[in-house]
């Protein structure tokens, strides 16, 4: 446990010094502080549009950070041979991988926390929203964090056996597909011309692929007219799904990494 924690915190230390990530974060923070200011001019009904924009910026930036942060993590360790100085200590490979993963999640949480905090402050001062609106803005990023942890788990899994650039396309691709998975499936399955066998296939594929859409609760494009009856159970379900998927990916990643020659 000690070793995992030590590796995780060294990973955070490295992550928050990566210039690419800082630049991305800075651009996002700039956008997030401009959006509410633009909204000042428009009517009060624009508030929900503004919230969507804030969410979009946070989500997109976090995904970019999650991918860029994780695809290089293991390959860099091998290339710079820092991994040897760690694996020759009483550290098992699974501990190393988990440490790296938790470090990535912590760094993500930190950066997402900063974005959310800034959004809340700007929102509060410029729009004077009521408490329920504030809660809405504060809650969504929690689901995003679970979503990004899942994305990071995908990227770290692939990083145990593919090169960073390939991994970038795989992870980004899976995230994009996973984001539109629900509407994609719906349009396919509700089409009367689809053969039953194709429907079963579609069902199978959609349940295997990681589903990212469910983490974007308030997105009217992904969830048109959806009213969540029991919010607590919805959150619990999506978070539980995420954690299970993450656990499976990490176990597979460990299996691959254990056999790998570094």
């Amino acid at each position, binding site marked *: 446990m*000690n*070793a995992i*924690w*030590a*590796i995780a915190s*060294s990973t955070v*230390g*490295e992550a928050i*010094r990566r210039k690419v990530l800082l630049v991305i974060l800075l651009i996002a923070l700039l956008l997030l502080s401009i959006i509410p200011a633009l909204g000042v001019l428009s009517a009060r009904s624009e508030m929900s549009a503004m919230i969507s924009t804030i969410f979009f910026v946070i989500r997109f930036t976090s995904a970019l950070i999650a991918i860029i942060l994780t695809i290089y993590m293991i390959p860099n360790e091998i290339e*710079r*041979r*820092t991994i*040897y*100085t*760690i*694996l*020759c*200590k*009483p*550290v*098992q490979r699974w501990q190393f991988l988990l440490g790296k993963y938790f470090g990535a999640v912590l760094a993500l949480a930190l950066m997402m926390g900063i974005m959310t905090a800034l959004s809340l402050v700007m929102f509060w001062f410029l729009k004077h929203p009521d408490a329920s609106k504030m809660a809405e803005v504060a809650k969504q990023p929690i689901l995003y964090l679970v979503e990004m942890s899942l994305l990071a788990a995908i990227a770290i899994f692939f990083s145990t056996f593919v090169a960073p650039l390939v991994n970038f396309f795989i992870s980004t691709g899976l995230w994009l597909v996973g984001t539109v998975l629900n509407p994609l499936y719906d349009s396919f399955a509700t089409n009367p011309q689809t053969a039953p066998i194709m429907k079963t296939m579609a069902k199978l594929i959609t349940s295997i692929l990681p589903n990212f859409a469910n983490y974007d609760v308030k997105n009217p494009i992904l969830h048109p007219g959806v009213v969540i009856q029991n919010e607590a159970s919805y959150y619990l379900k999506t978070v539980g799904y995420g954690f299970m998927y993450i656990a499976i990916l990490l176990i597979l990643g460990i299996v691959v990494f254990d056999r790998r*020659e*570094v």
Partner: protein
Amino acid sequence: MAAAIETKKLTKTYRSRQLGKINVVNELDLHVEEGEIFGFLGPNGAGKTTTIKMLLGIIYPTHGEGYVLGREIGDMDVHRVISYLPERPYYYEHMTGFELLKFYDSLFGNHDPDKCQRLLERVNLAGDASKTINQYSKGMQQRVGLAQSLLNDPKLLFLDEPTGGLDPIAHREIRDLILSFRDEGRTVFISSHELSEVELICDRVAIIHKGEIARQGRLTELLKGGRIEITLQGIDEGLARKLATGGTLHNLSDGYMLDMPEEEDVNAVVDTVRSAKGSIVSMVPRKKRLEDLFVETVRAATPGAAPKLAAEGGV
């Protein structure tokens, strides 16, 4: 004495597109005793790093056996009592020297800042403890590497090319540290192609070439067979020829030069020359150098390839 490292037919095969299967390490039989400094020598690409990684359980042998401190390789428990300094290592640059040591210490489940401080003092980095690694020179990085390799008070240290790419002063510092490890009773396994370095500190060496051990033994034994050059004047040619039976004779403008193996009876030559009223101008021992042995060994293994390898072996 017990063996610190023992391998039996340890082999690592890689596949490459052009060459097919190649045995990068081929049926290696190594024997390293406890408490010695062992030099693992070979030209670049000989298979030194691959062997060390197998011994550490970082990569897996294709076949063969290996034991480190009596435990089969791959046994992670042994990592508590050994340490490793990779070749051209790279450390987390954002950490300070002190943080780096604390980080590696925590990988053992320890938290002992005093010990970290003491180790930094030992490698002469106490004054630079709060500088980050990217402000360290190469020599300083190598010293902080040695400091971290001492965190667990190891019985056995693997040092892969520890002086590679360092200036002479840094060489000297590293060498003195390694010697102090032996004084503390630790076993040190050094891979290197810098022969003059190894010659100064190693007790025993193995020469590896193309994945195979070409020579292995005590340095003093391997370096037996030096020569002595004796320059003589004032004796006639007949006597000179008689003296030269064990060696070779060269004619000089004003005398002779006798080149003979050092184990020949030099005193007898001196006596004979003196009693014939001749004079001995000089006697120069030509010690066999590790470099000679190395070139000789590599040349024997690959006819024709020697000049290049000799250049790599030189310092």
